């Protein structure tokens, strides 16, 4: 019987129960959806790395002998070592794509994952080609492909298409999104190497028992007796690092937003449940007078919240992982290459369900127990209205000058503190999410203009090939009015921190400008090195401090004093003038020429042409993923605000029905009453927005710190975004208010003022 009562009560209080259901559903949906996205990425990549036995460290040298391999393998902590010959080739296509060829020794470490064709075996001849590259070029298993290695042609049959754990992220140069038509890789057996070419192993792949630390690194160095040039751990390997950073940033976003969302959802559920129970006060009295045990009444009301929130949370937990991750995966597939994209529900979802349902049940229990505490005779009588104390406002002279509207609303807000606070919290959530969403877009756009218009003012960057002669460079510079720059990778060390970063050496450059941390143009000193703002933060150094650094491929550590700190959004590292560079004992060999001229097609001695247009295109693709996040946030914000406001509106309306009908009896017009309700709503919305904007900015800055070490995001929110956020929040608030204030017309004055029932 009580079960039937429950069902009918739910039907009666449709709006509230639906909102509890929706809130539990949405909260858990977003949490589990976003959670299983990053968790899925983590799980998939971890499994992928284990399955293919991704190396823990890579060593690059010129010729590793059998003895070297054995020596490294004997180091305590090393599980296995494998040698490999890696060289770049040009495949025979019009756009001259670079294909990196790996001739492997026994295919134990960093193996490739077969997508199509036959398994890789050392005894087989042929090439196992990058599947993404094969796709772009329309190559199939069984086709032949010719690689040009410094003029020597190697022709191989494609035995299979593969993916490699070393190429999850394979963008080269300044592009953010890899272009698989320009770049690929291939796996071959060492036996497939042309017999008439000198063969030597250039790479050592090392698999270790634990993460590679300095101690292990030193032990490996020692084992090789100085015959070592570069050692890269996983954290320095671009593909691994970039993807881990990506997951990290998703995790950061994926934890703060859904938790903020879920918090508001749970708060809404709690207030709604508490109100529902309090509104059933008389009925609890009846049940008690009839002789129902406390336990049964408690159970009856607890089950209200329990089943509804449980149903919502369950559906959310199932639907989230099935939909949201794939929405994001679509965008990510253009950037990363993984054999599969799985969504994996993180364990914390279970805790979240238990937490949401548990808190809902607990609040019902507490409210119900509170009502039950009174004797049935008290419970049967309507609750004595709360004693209204005069607020501080009343005493001021100003109070008397307020209109009735203002007085009534002010009293009402302070009398129902819980409801007012909830409404404000809902609005804060909504406006904070909106500010976050718009701010993210604004900041990103601002960064792109900063990077491509203020900092890098060249239109084309010609990447020089390694064989280019100095005269050629001179000719190119004259032909295109270009400027030569040197770009490289360095390892930086200070305060016990080690980071890899970029190196930029320029000579009287006019096409690259530098900005300080407030994005104002600045000059960098000619006689000392300058470090990027983000890198300075990571290494905890300031102007005047010293840092040690070395170029990858050169073991010579240099210690320099920092002359200035500049800011750049997409690559972190150090920069210096040519003079300073040469003074430190390096020779300035340009790696690229930048020019204001637009160049397309082929240029002698140039390995790659990067145009601003293409770079911006790739940025825009990158932004598509971000836009998706923005849309999800906006929709979530709107739903959140709508449900919270509607829910509170309906509840407060029911509670104030007597008051409103009294006003109506006295002669207030329906329109006036609606205005009364609207005014209060607008006040609360305004307060919520004022508090929500700083909260949104705080969330945004928190998210930006997790965007990866390569990026230096700066918060920028345009005036339009503020306007959209404020106008949007008000619009939602007012529209929803109209929905429930419609009911004022329907108030039945007589029945509302009659008996207690």
């Amino acid at each position, binding site marked *: 019987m*009580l079960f039937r009562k429950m069902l009918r009560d739910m039907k009666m209080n449709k709006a509230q129960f639906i909102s509890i259901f929706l809130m539990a559903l949405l909260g858990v949906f977003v949490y589990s959806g976003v959670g299983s996205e990053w968790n899925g990425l983590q799980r998939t990549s971890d499994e992928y790395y284990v399955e293919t036995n991704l190396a823990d460290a890579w060593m690059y040298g010129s010729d590793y002998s059998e003895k070297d391999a054995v020596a490294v393998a004997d180091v305590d902590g090393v599980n296995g070592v494998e040698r490999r010959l890696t060289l770049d080739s040009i495949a025979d296509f019009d756009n001259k794509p670079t294909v990196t060829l790996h001739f492997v020794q026994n295919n134990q470490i960093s193996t490739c994952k077969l997508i199509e064709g036959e398994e890789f075996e050392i005894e087989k001849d042929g090439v196992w080609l990058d599947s993404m590259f094969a796709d772009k070029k329309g190559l199939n298993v069984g086709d032949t492909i010719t690689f040009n290695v410094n003029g020597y042609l190697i022709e191989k049959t494609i035995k299979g298409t593969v993916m490699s754990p070393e190429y999850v992220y394979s963008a080269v140069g300044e592009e953010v999104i890899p272009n698989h038509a320009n770049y690929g890789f291939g796996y071959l057996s060492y036996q497939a190497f042309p017999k008439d070419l000198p063969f030597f192993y250039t790479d050592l792949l090392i698999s270790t028992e634990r993460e590679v630390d300095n101690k292990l690194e030193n032990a490996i160095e020692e084992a090789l007796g100085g015959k070592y040039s570069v050692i890269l751990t996983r954290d320095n390997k671009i593909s691994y690092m970039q993807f881990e950073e990506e997951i990290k940033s998703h995790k950061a976003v994926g934890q703060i937003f859904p938790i903020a969302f879920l918090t508001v959802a749970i708060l809404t559920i709690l207030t709604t449940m508490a109100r529902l129970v309090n509104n059933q006060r008389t009925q609890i009295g009846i*049940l008690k007078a009839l002789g129902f045990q406390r336990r049964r009444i408690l159970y009856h009301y607890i089950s209200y919240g329990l089943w509804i929130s449980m149903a919502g949370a369950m559906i959310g937990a199932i639907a989230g992982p099935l939909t949201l991750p794939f929405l994001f995966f679509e965008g990510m597939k253009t950037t990363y290459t993984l054999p599969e994209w799985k969504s994996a529900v993180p364990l914390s979802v279970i805790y979240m369900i238990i937490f949401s349902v548990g808190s809902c049940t607990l609040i019902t229990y507490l409210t119900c127990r509170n009502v039950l505490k009174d004797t049935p005779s008290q419970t*049967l009588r309507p609750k004595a209205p709360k004693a209204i104390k005069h607020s501080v406002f009343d005493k001021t002279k100003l109070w008397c000058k307020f209109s009735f509207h203002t007085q009534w609303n002010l009293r009402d807000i302070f009398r129902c503190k819980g409801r007012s606070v909830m409404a404000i919290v809902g609005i804060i959530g909504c406006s904070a999410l909106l500010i976050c969403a718009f701010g993210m877009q604004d900041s990103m756009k601002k960064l792109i203009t900063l990077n491509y218009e203020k900092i890098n003012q060249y239109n084309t960057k010609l990447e020089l090939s390694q064989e280019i002669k100095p005269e050629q460079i001179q000719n190119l510079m004259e032909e295109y009015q270009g400027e030569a720059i040197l770009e490289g990778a360095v390892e930086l060390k200070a305060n016990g921190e080690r980071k890899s970063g970029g190196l930029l050496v320029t000579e009287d450059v006019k096409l690259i400008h530098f900005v300080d941390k407030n994005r104002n143009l600045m000059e960098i000193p000619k006689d000392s090195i300058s470090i990027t703002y983000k890198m300075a933060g990571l290494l905890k150094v300031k102007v005047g401090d010293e840092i040690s650094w070395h170029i990858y491929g050169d073991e010579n550590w240099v210690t320099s004093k920092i002359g200035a700190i500049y800011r750049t959004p997409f690559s972190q590292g150090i920069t210096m003038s040519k003079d300073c560079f040469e003074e430190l004992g390096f020779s300035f060999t340009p790696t690229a020429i930048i020019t204001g001229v637009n160049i397309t097609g082929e240029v002698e001695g140039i390995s790659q042409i990067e145009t601003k247009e293409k770079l911006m295109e790739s940025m825009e693709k990158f932004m598509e993923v971000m836009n998706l996040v923005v849309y999800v946030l906006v929709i979530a914000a709107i739903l959140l605000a709508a449900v919270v406001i509607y829910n509170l509106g309906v509840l407060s309306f029911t509670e104030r029905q007597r008051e409103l009908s009294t006003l109506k009896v006295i002669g207030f017009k329906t329109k006036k009453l609606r205005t009364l309700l609207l005014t209060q709503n607008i006040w609360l919305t305004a307060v919520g927005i004022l508090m929500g904007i700083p909260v949104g900015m705080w969330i945004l800055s928190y998210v930006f710190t997790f965007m990866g070490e390569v990026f230096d995001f700066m918060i920028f929110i345009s005036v339009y975004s503020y306007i959209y956020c404020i106008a949007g929040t008000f619009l939602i608030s007012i529209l929803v208010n109209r929905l429930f204030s419609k009911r004022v017309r329907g108030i039945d004055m007589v029945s509302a003022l009659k008996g207690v029932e």
Partner: protein
Amino acid sequence: MSFIEFSEVTKEYKMGEAKQLAVDKINFSIGEGEFVVILGPSGAGKSTVLNLLGGMDFVTSGKIMINGKNITNYKDDELTDYRAANIGFVFQFYNLIPTLTALENVALTKEIVKGALNASEVLSSVGLGEHQNKFPTQLSGGEQQRVSIARAICKNPTMLLCDEPTGALDSETGVVILSLLQKLSREYHKTVIIVSHNAVLAEAADKVIRIKNGKITEIIINETPIDVSEVSW
């Protein structure tokens, strides 16, 4: 000893700092199967007596014996059991569960006591056989009150406590309700206690207890009560 025994019962309400004496050291007794009317102006303490009797409130001092048991020492759970087993309530404003039908409201008692009567039969006996499946809001005031009485009887309690059962009804409907209550006392030997401010009921009662300002002013034992229907309204 009588079925119900009130001795020196006092009930004090605390309203913030002010104390209000609702019932002041009252004594009375009621026998089993009696049809009793407690009369008095509003605010006299009638409802308090009924609430104390029904185990819905605690006494400040004094003793209430029901069927030889002292209920003043009962804890909350014991009081609940006492209410469930012995008492049927009829309220002025019916207090039906709005989301349950008439039949379901009555059948609710099955979940509390083991020896509950057949809900449908009880509803028919109060003349509502045809309205079993209507919700409270679809019934008139008199009909709702009959549902409420049916709910009280269905538990098969030893006594029925009625707080202004006709207070919200017109006089004709009121007579129907009161006749029903009198019939329960006479034919089924239930103790029926009615709280009212309507003095005309006095002629129909076996015993009339008059209360004023928390004190009993008069107890009248009526040797020859007349039928409710014969009372001149």
